[in-house]
């Protein structure tokens, strides 16, 4: 940028650049000399002498010159900075004034941006808190989750037995510490017994996670031995809710399952492992001699410098050595090295969030598409203003403002707008995230770590600035694409030139394309979700209430005594008004728990040489279970009270299992047994298969045994009722307490809730994606309407002339519509292309829907295209009404 001398004088800008500064310095020095000479001359000193004298007194001229140069260069730097700051300040003032002059535009633009940026930031809060933020434990990168795997047995992820746990803890030097944990319920005794969610952990649990207690201390291996289970560590939430945060809680004795347990510590608020609803941690009472019972989850801290891969190698060796010593585990003659036996060591963070990673990334992408549409929308608004402001810009150009200067001014305006939108968006995100995390609509891992934190705010700022630059490009194109000075008159006349129209066309196509992509992707996910919701689970959860009824261990220690209780309870409950049927079951569908075991069918070969022993899901029920859940019995009979201890051991299998051996389902009378048990069970019935683990995956083989022959105290009452479930449930609870007052009855939930929870992540994806797509379509429709209106109003004069020389109004309508249709076709085609790419990418989120589902790929794009064309109709009709006289008079 060079300035003419006139400019320099006008604004008193010092000469910049080394050459200019040097000239200034020399001027100044000679001024000093001249003044000195003049003074001497005034005193009557002759010219030559005065000159010599002045020079002598001056000092070392070249050194002075250097010093003056240094000073000047610093001044020049400061001056440049000041100038720049001044101009930015002026631009900002001007931008704010301009925006205040058109409040409707400003409000609409800021709101549009706020929605786009707010949604983007809200989803980023989830991504940030769940996927990016490191776990809140010391050196989280050293933490790994641990499990075993025996794929040949269908045990893709196999938990640990107590023996397993001790052998890794003591034998794997790659781990600094190693712990197991298992979720259990215990009953807190007192006036109103209460069921607590407890995590039983092994001694090194707190050491692995490296978190110090808030109060008191934690337990270690010394407290974790069989039958020394007498200390407890509370979570922050439980401490608050049950002790009001009292600091003297340490030392309190709790009655847990009838045993006195002393509180020794309280964990800090942020501690939420493995799940945030844990209330109390108790030592497991590890008994390394217990070889069976694989129920422990594993978590470990790698020794310093050890990689996940090294730990995996070492533990797999330990695992195989152990397996070689387990004749029951391996088929005869097979060594562990020839099987797929391996350990699963995974970074803890990725293990925790593995199920939600893809949905979250898809949501983030979707919301960014929506944001782009919002940006295109604001760009359209900007364009329409830029056309209207052509005169203002031309005037400023004529007054000497350079194109860069005008461009910068316009860009400043866009960025101010974007920042306003960003601030409003951040507020929306903050509210949204707070409501979302507090609502409990969905359960996501690490939901407690989700908040609008500085990183989210920085992201919001960055996104806002990017938006500002993006939609600032449109008016820039308008302003800078035009020659400055001579156009005042023309600018006024002709708001739309070729360049501007091209910008608008790009905007229409982009908005339509993006919303088609987003809508089709959302359509696929929505369709999947509908399929999931309508999936026949094999049972009907509606109208069924599940009441967990854990029997007090002390009284029912010998499981068998639970049987008379169930019989009395069922007799009483079934006689209550409103109850249609009732039964007890060990594992409620979708409760997250599942028992599996290996099995043998009589007359079929035992586990073959390849080591493939089939696994079956086992469950224990009372008579009436199948009727209560509406599970059809395809063959044979239900259990009866006659199936009891001492009578013929019986079982009911499901269709999946039966079909494998008896394609005609004639399984009744055949015999099977569990591999760990020598008793043969006679099959008395075949039930329909039920999906009770995951809606999306087909059922595994099941077998049911009657409680009278397989007693347990771990029971849930399921009740199917007519009418008011709440009233019935209350009556049921009173009845149960009448029989056994020691049962805590606070675990009451409709069975539908269990199923719903299983669909949580998918529901979140569906709801949010659907909302974003809808929003995108709305924004796009408004945007397209805006562009077409603009297009028409810019050509009012042309249409007026056309009609003045005899064009039919219908011809004008057709002209506008054909333009709109052409744009719609291009947009839809590009959008479908985008959707094809997107659908491949979201494939894993789809269920029972092809990634090229014809419905989503035809109906939705066509509908959107039609919407686009429809939004041209109004402007087209307006064009046809253009009054030739009005149009021409505007000249």
């Amino acid at each position, binding site marked *: 940028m060079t300035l003419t001398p006139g400019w320099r004088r006008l604004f008193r800008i010092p000469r910049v650049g080394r050459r200019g500064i040097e000239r200034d310095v020399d001027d100044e020095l000679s001024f*000093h000399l001249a003044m000195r000479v003049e003074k001497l001359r005034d005193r009557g000193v002759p010219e030559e002498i005065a000159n010599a004298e002045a020079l002598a007194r001056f000092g070392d001229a070249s050194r002075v010159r250097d010093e003056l140069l240094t000073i000047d260069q610093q001044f020049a730097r400061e001056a440049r900075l000041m100038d720049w700051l001044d101009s930015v300040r002026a631009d900002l003032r001007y931008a704010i004034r301009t925006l205040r002059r058109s409040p409707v535009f400003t409000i609409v633009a800021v709101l549009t941006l706020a929605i786009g940026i707010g949604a983007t930031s809200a989803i980023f809060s989830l991504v940030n808190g769940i996927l990016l933020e490191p776990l809140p434990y010391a050196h989280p990168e050293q933490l790994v989750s641990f499990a075993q795997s025996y794929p040949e047995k269908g045990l893709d992820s196999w938990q640990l037995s107590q023996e397993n746990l001790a052998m890794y803890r003591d034998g794997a030097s790659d781990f600094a510490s190693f712990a197991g944990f298992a979720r259990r319920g215990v009953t807190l005794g007192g006036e109103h017994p209460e069921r607590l969610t407890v995590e039983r952990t092994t001694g090194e649990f707190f050491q692995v996670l490296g978190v110090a207690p808030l109060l008191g201390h934690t337990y270690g291996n010394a407290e974790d031995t069989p039958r020394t289970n007498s200390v407890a560590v509370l979570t922050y939430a439980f401490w608050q809710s049950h002790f009001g945060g009292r600091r003297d809680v340490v030392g309190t004795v709790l009655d847990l399952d009838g045993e006195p347990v002393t509180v020794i510590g309280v964990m800090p608020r942020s501690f939420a492992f493995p799940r945030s609803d844990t209330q109390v941690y108790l030592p497991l009472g590890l008994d390394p001699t217990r070889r069976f019972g694989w129920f422990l989850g594993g978590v470990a801290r790698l020794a310093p410098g050890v990689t996940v891969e090294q730990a995996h190698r070492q533990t797999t060796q330990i695992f195989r050595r152990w397996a070689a010593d387990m004749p029951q585990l391996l088929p005869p003659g097979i060594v562990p090295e020839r099987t797929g036996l391996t350990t699963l060591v995974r970074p803890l963070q990725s293990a925790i969030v593995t199920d939600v990673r893809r949905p979250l990334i898809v949501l983030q992408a979707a919301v960014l598409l929506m944001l782009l549409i919002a940006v295109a929308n604001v760009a359209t608004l900007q364009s329409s203003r830029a056309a209207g402001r052509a005169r203002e810009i031309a005037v400023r150009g004529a007054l000497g403002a350079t194109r860069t200067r005008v461009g910068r001014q316009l860009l400043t305006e866009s960025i101010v707008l974007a920042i306003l939108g960003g601030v409003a968006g951040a507020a929306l995100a903050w509210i949204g995230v707070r409501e979302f995390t507090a609502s409990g609509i969905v359960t996501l891992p690490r939901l407690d770590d989700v908040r609008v934190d500085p990183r989210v705010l920085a992201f919001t700022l960055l996104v806002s600035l990017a938006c500002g630059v993006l939609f600032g490009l449109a008016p820039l194109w308008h302003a800078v694409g035009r020659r400055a000075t001579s156009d005042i008159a023309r600018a006024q006349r002709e708001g739309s030139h070729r360049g501007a129209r091209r910008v608008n066309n790009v905007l229409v196509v982009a908005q339509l394309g993006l919303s088609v992509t987003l809508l089709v992707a959302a359509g696929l996910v929505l369709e999947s979700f509908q399929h999931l919701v309508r999936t026949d689970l094999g049972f009907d959860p509606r109208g069924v209430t599940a009441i967990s009824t854990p029997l007090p261990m002390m009284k029912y220690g010998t499981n068998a005594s639970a049987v008379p209780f169930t019989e009395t309870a069922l007799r009483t409950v079934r006689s209550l008004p409103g109850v249609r049927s009732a039964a007890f079951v060990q594992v409620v569908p979708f409760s997250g728990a599942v028992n599996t075991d290996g099995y043998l069918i009589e007359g079929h070969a035992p586990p073959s040489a390849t080591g493939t022993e089939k696994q079956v899901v086992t469950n224990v029920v009372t008579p009436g279970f199948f009727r209560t859940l509406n599970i059809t019995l395809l063959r044979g009979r239900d259990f009866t009270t006659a199936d009891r201890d001492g009578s013929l051991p019986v079982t009911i299998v499901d269709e999946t299992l039966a079909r494998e051996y008896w394609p005609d389902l004639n399984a009744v009378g055949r015999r099977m047994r569990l591999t760990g048990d020598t008793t043969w069970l006679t099959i008395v019935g075949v039930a329909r298969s039920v999906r009770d683990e995951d809606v999306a995956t087909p059922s595994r083989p099941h077998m049911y045994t009657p409680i009278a022959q397989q007693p347990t105290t771990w029971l849930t009452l399921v009740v199917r009722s007519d009418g008011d479930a709440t009233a019935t449930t209350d009556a049921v609870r009173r009845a149960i307490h009448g029989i056994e007052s020691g049962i805590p009855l606070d675990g009451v939930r409709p069975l539908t809730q269990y199923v719903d929870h299983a669909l949580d992540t998918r529901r979140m994806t569906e709801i949010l994606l659907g909302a974003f797509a809808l929003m995108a379509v709305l924004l796009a429709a408004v945007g397209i309407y805006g562009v077409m209106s603009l297009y028409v109003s810019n050509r009012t004069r042309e249409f007026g002339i056309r009609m003045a020389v005899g064009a039919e109004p219908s011809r004008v309508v057709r002209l506008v519509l054909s333009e709109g249709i052409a744009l719609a076709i291009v947009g839809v085609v590009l959008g479908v292309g985008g959707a094809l790419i997107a659908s491949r990418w979201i494939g894993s989120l789809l269920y029972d829907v092809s990634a090229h589902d014809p419905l989503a790929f035809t109906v939705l794009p066509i509908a959107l295209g039609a919407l686009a064309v429809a939004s041209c109709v109004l402007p087209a009709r307006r064009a046809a009404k253009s009054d030739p006289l009005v149009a021409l008079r505007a000249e």
Partner: protein
Amino acid sequence: MAANPRSFIPLRPVEFLVLLALADEELHGYALTQQIDERTGGAVRLEPGNLYKVLKRLVADGLIAGTHRRAAPELDSERRRYYRLTRLGARVAALEAERLETLLASRTVRSLTRRFGTA
């Protein structure tokens, strides 16, 4: 950025004179020498050789700065750069003045001037 004004105390006499001269008005280099000349009754004559050395040091320390406001173009040549006191410079000058005041208020100084002073 926020330098501690105390770290500049004591100032050299000539630095203090420059700051004092700029306390009332913004001046260019030549006018500065004139001002100091007048203020000291001709006792201190700053030749350009010294002047710019002092100015450079004061600019580098942030006690004085260049100014963007200048006299109207027709009244003055645009070639000359003007200097002004910065906030820091003003605080340093005030501190130095206080220091000198305390020094001058001492009994020794008073008895000295009574016995040997010219007034």
